[in-house]
């Protein structure tokens, strides 16, 4: 049986309590981008905790703020890499240090050594004019005083571990000479080169075939075992989270709508959006269906966020009576079982009933 992990067990959601409560403690994080059309509220009040040695799987809508959150933790928004004058608030605690208001140089020192990220888009993260090898060497030498030869050997070793054939030959290739999955693996090698304590992996295996995927997941597990790293894995592949995560966080419209131990999320999910996700996947362990069933409606605008529950316009249960709570009231994350949180106005008995009677039998 999956044991209940500690990562989600913190009940206290009050922002502003100044002591960090976990190795990674994100509190009431907001990341907004001003654009010509209005303020894009990409992340709008997100809180979660993660302990060392644990893996948090982040799933959710495309465009719900998963990558923006990761970049915020890595301190990459301030570089102006994405967006003009990003507005950020809230707190991000890593190993006892607060990062949102920290000195950028301090954050830069942490990045690459204590924390590293595997980016969703390998091409955007790698420099087209430098060879794969020289980029890994550079990443290693920034934090380690070693000769080029030593660093090169380390680069080849890592390319080998991520399964690049003939790494000693391919190390001098340019990114465009690698296949999509090879670029992704090269980036994984770059992220792992300094054995980070926090690894954020944004869609680390989407470009990989299932056999290499299994190998990469093993590699991440090894890293975790060897160095006790905390891992955040963002993915659309629910098979991957089922395989590797201790806890799952489900995002929708810049917020967390449900969070809890992986077993609960698959067997007793407590949010209509999570149900929608589980219902729309094609499943290889089931009979073939004719048509997939997406969640109805369009993703929410992040500029004119619906007041109240962001999922309201698409939720089949929006009209279920909520004991006097109005549509314009925003549901907060509430604990429904130990370590399991959901942001929905429906009464818990009602949700459990709907899940068991209406949703689960159809999956």
């Amino acid at each position, binding site marked *: 049986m999956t044991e209940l992990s500690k990562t989600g067990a913190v009940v206290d959601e009050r922002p502003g309590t100044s002591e960090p409560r976990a190795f990674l403690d994100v509190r009431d994080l907001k990341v907004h981008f001003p654009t010509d059309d209005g303020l894009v509220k990409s992340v709008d009040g997100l809180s979660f905790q993660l302990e060392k040695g644990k893996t948090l799987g982040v799933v959710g809508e495309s465009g719900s703020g998963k990558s923006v959150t990761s970049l915020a933790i890595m301190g990459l928004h301030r570089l102006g890499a994405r967006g003009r004058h990003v507005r950020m608030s809230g707190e991000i605690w890593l190993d006892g240090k607060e990062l949102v208001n920290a000195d950028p140089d301090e954050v830069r020192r942490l990045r690459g050594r204590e924390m590293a990220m595997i980016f969703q888009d390998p091409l955007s993260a790698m420099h087209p004019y430098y060879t794969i090898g020289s980029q890994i060497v550079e990443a290693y030498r920034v934090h380690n005083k070693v000769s080029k030869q030593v660093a090169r050997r380390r680069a080849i070793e890592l390319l080998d571990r991520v399964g690049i054939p003939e790494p000693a030959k391919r190390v001098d290739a340019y990114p465009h000479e690698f296949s999509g999955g090879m670029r992704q693996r090269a980036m994984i090698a770059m992220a792992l080169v300094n054995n980070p304590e926090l690894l954020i992996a944004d869609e680390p295996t989407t470009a990989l075939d299932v056999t290499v995927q299994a190998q990469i997941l093993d590699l991440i597990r090894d890293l975790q075992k060897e160095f006790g790293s905390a891992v955040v894995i963002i993915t659309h592949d629910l098979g991957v989270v089922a395989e590797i995560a201790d806890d799952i966080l489900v995002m929708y419209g810049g917020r967390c709508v449900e969070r809890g131990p992986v077993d609960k999320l698959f067997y007793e999910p407590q949010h209509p959006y999570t149900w929608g996700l589980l219902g729309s996947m*094609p499943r290889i362990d089931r009979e*073939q269906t004719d048509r997939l069933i997406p969640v109805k409606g*369009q993703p929410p605008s992040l500029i004119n966020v619906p007041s109240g529950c962001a999922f309201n316009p698409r939720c089949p249960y929006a009209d279920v009576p909520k004991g006097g709570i109005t549509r314009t009231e925003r549901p907060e994350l509430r604990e429904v079982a130990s370590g399991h949180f959901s942001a929905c106005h429906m009464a818990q008995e009602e949700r459990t009933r709907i899940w068991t009677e209406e949703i689960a039998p159809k999956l």
Partner: protein
Amino acid sequence: MTNEPTRTNDPLLKVEGLVKHFPIKKGLLQRQSGAVKAVDGIDFEVRRGETLGVVGESGCGKSTMGRLITRLLEPSGGRIEFDGTDITHLSTGGMRPLRRDIQMIFQDPYGSLNPRHTIGSIVSAPFRLQGVEPEGGVKKEVQGLLERVGLSPEHYNRYPHEFSGGQRQRIGIARALALKPRLVVADEPVSALDVSIQAQVVNLMDDLQDELGLTYVIIAHDLSVIRHVSDRIAVMYLGKIVELADRTSLYQAPMHPYTKALMSAVPVPDPRRRGAKSERILLKGDVPSPIAPPSGCRFHTRCWKATEICRAQEPPLLELAPGRRVACHHPENAPDQAPGDPALASAGEAIEVVDATPKTAASPAVPEGPAPKKL
């Protein structure tokens, strides 16, 4: 199969002996020191109105094959016929009239979108380039397209870097579908999308196929998605097609050992079956290099069934059952093509079979707890 009787029976796309080698250059003089044999002699056909799925190991040449048949790359050898016309060596100019008919959705959305153009202008580009004026105007048409792939009109004036990964992928899809092409090669079209939008895009592609009779070649790693969308599936390994079959046979009774290993490694979305897959075949051998592929059968260095003949002779892609082509001397679920051949020493060590709680695929192990019956 979606092959409608009203259509002519000749294939829309016919590929013969297709080859692409990328030279590797070394040193100051840029001397050629070898070549990456990305695609190394493949034959297949794509029927009108069907969806051909393409799967295979990362780096085995899928994207290269896609770029060759859309003629974004110049083949090193072989022949490509589109709708009866030989397009193997057509120049950019010669391809122009066909650009409308043949479109590609790229695997790396970031690399394929011009960062200085707004989404509106990126998706309207095909209309401008081909001089097409849709009813109601380009802008309206483009906004409609954006909406169909799950983007909103508020995205029209934004730039690629302001989008999430999945949104960028949808931009590529909208652009490719803009002119209602006849053949769409989609390289990982839904891998960056959440499962709900994935379902929406898959359904959209399905609808367009019904409405317009589109033909798809879909490259993807997600075998659940591939099973859902494809009529037939080609499995590639190191620049070759090793198996080509209709989806039901392929999933129920794979013939090539590599296909079998691939099928067994699919992660199942069920945390209670973690580490308890009924028989997962882990390939232990190193992934061979396309610079110097193994002799004989290219899979022999990792295959648990490999025998002497596998190292010496390349197995031809043969039709071992109606509509099923396989390149293997000792296929699964089919008669052995070279019985009695002595096994290779490496075969004994090639794989690790992890098995536990062998439940059938359709009924996952459900331990104690108040869990619903099915998930």
